[in-house]
């Protein structure tokens, strides 16, 4: 056997060599944010919850508004998703208002080439007249929202895109809330006029089921059927948990819940067999409201915007910004106004959508 010293030296050299090979470097945390799928564009259809600034014109723009949230303090859910894919902030496909010229709410409608965010505040699934449309009269005529329905939005995109999808677009469909508001108003009007409450409620729920089934049909015929391969359908959030519904009698809240569930059930049933990603926003909002702390939400009942006439001429988050929110820290409030989410609420929705995109292998 060789002398001990020689053996130790030889062993040390062998060990040192392996250590050098190991070359353990620093431990800095990094990220590779390249998604698994690279969409050519984000295309979205829906209502105020997807609106990227259809009405950011005239007085609405002058007031620092334009989207249905606390404007200017954080990205919208759709913008967050586009950003994940390295795409620019989605721009509204159409802009303008058809309200009172005297108040700066009459702005000629223009279509923005290359902009595929079709969602408009007040838009319904099929009926062209939604909340804020001047044809409804009263305060609706002041703002004069365009409320182009989802079915027309989808047709408009096909016209703009030459009749079909390329198959590389990431498409979002998110609608139904305005059908709840109009159908609920119809139920209330029927009962107010002496109609049978049960029959009126049943008619309202039935109408919601029809809207859900119609939306599923449009997704299949006008989106998937026209070559779209990456389609995400977000169901209707539980409107019965919004400050709007919470201000109504318990029985009415129950009716709203029934409307939401019937709409979502029909939407889901109608989409069975279609290759679309289903994002359960209804359950998302229920989870958030059941355990706000788990989502770092500090308030799930009070609107973050000061909706008093003195501070907010429209009583809507459409013209809400940091300049007219209520006092205190509203950064982790869920609702901006009676129905729309804050930027943080938008972030939570984007996370819910991203979860499903990842599950599908698209993120």
């Amino acid at each position: 056997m060789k002398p001990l010293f020689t053996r130790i030296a030889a062993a040390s050299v062998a060990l040192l060599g392996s250590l050098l090979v190991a070359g353990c470097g620093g431990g800095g945390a990094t990220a590779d944010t390249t998604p698994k799928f690279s969409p050519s564009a984000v295309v979205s259809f829906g209502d105020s919850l997807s609106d990227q600034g259809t009405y950011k014109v005239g007085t609405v723009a002058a007031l620092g508004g334009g989207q249905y949230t606390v404007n200017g303090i954080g990205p919208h859910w759709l913008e967050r998703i586009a950003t994940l894919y390295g795409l620019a902030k989605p721009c509204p496909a159409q802009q303008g208002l058809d309200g009172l010229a005297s108040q700066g709410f009459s702005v000629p409608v223009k279509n923005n080439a290359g902009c595929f965010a079709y969602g408009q505040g007040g838009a319904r699934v099929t009926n062209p007249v939604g909340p804020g449309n001047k044809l409804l009269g009263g305060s609706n005529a002041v703002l004069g929202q365009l409320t182009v329905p989802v079915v027309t939005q989808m047709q408009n995109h096909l016209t703009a895109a030459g009749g079909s999808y390329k198959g590389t677009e990431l498409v979002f469909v998110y609608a139904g809330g305005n059908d709840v508001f109009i159908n609920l108003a119809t139920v209330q009007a029927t009962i107010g006029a002496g109609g049978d409450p049960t029959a009126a409620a049943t008619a309202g729920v039935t109408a919601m089921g029809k809207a859900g089934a119609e939306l599923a049909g449009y997704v299949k015929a006008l989106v998937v059927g026209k070559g779209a391969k990456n389609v995400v359908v977000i169901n209707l959030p539980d409107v019965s948990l919004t400050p709007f519904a919470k201000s109504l009698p318990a029985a009415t809240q129950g009716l709203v819940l029934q409307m939401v569930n019937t709409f979502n059930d029909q939407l889901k049933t109608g989409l069975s067999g279609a290759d679309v990603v289903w994002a359960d926003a209804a359950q998302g909002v229920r989870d958030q409201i059941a355990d706000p702390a788990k989502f770092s939400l500090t308030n799930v009942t009070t609107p973050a915007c000061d909706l008093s006439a003195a501070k907010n001429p429209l009583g809507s988050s459409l013209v809400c910004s940091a300049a007219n929110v209520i006092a205190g820290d509203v950064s982790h409030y869920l609702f901006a106004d009676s129905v729309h989410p804050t930027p943080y609420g938008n972030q939570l929705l984007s996370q819910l959508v991203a979860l499903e995109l990842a599950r599908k292998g698209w993120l």
Partner: protein
Amino acid sequence: MNIKSLLAVTLLSATGLVHAQSAGSFIVYGGAAQINPQVESGDLTAPSLAGTKVDVKKASSFVGGVTYFWTDNISIDLPIALPFKHDVVGAGAIEGVGKLGTVKSLPMTLLAQYRFGDANSAFRPFVGAGPTYGYFFKPRATATLSGITGGSPATPTTLSMKSRLGATLELGAAYNVTKDWSASLSVTKTFIKTTGSLSTGQTIETTLDPVSIKFGVGYRF
């Protein structure tokens, strides 16, 4: 070298009465190892979906080390490995989202071993035990992690795993192929926990308790 010829050489060496593993021997070895974490994940703290968990997948790497024979039967083993790269994937409420990131691990272990048989036995089973320092480094997050936590490419959500001390138990066997050359195979169980953290503030307690298999060829100096 196939098993048959390995066995033949082993038998020859055994009959040759060599003193392959005797007191004072240094054996430097090289080989490969696979670490297979047996993860038991806690829940990610708020803000998160209730029941958000993680899984840490198995990884393989090259491993080497030195064994010093204190006596003919008691040895001290210091394995030195190249980093292992593990995938960290979503589980629980976020099951199915796939890879959230990767993290490299470098387990640093010092084992005291008892080797059965004599210094000149061809086949020597052994048991070992000792401390392990699990060093976790170079964590790299994915777009998925940013997506589900509100990050963006400009401000991505990153993850990290705290390096921790644990304990390892070992069961193995060595063949002394010749006087100087040997081959060994061992299975180790390490008891170790870590705390994962996100740049968005959430943490998650995770028990890793990996089972590792290590194969090596050694040379006696």
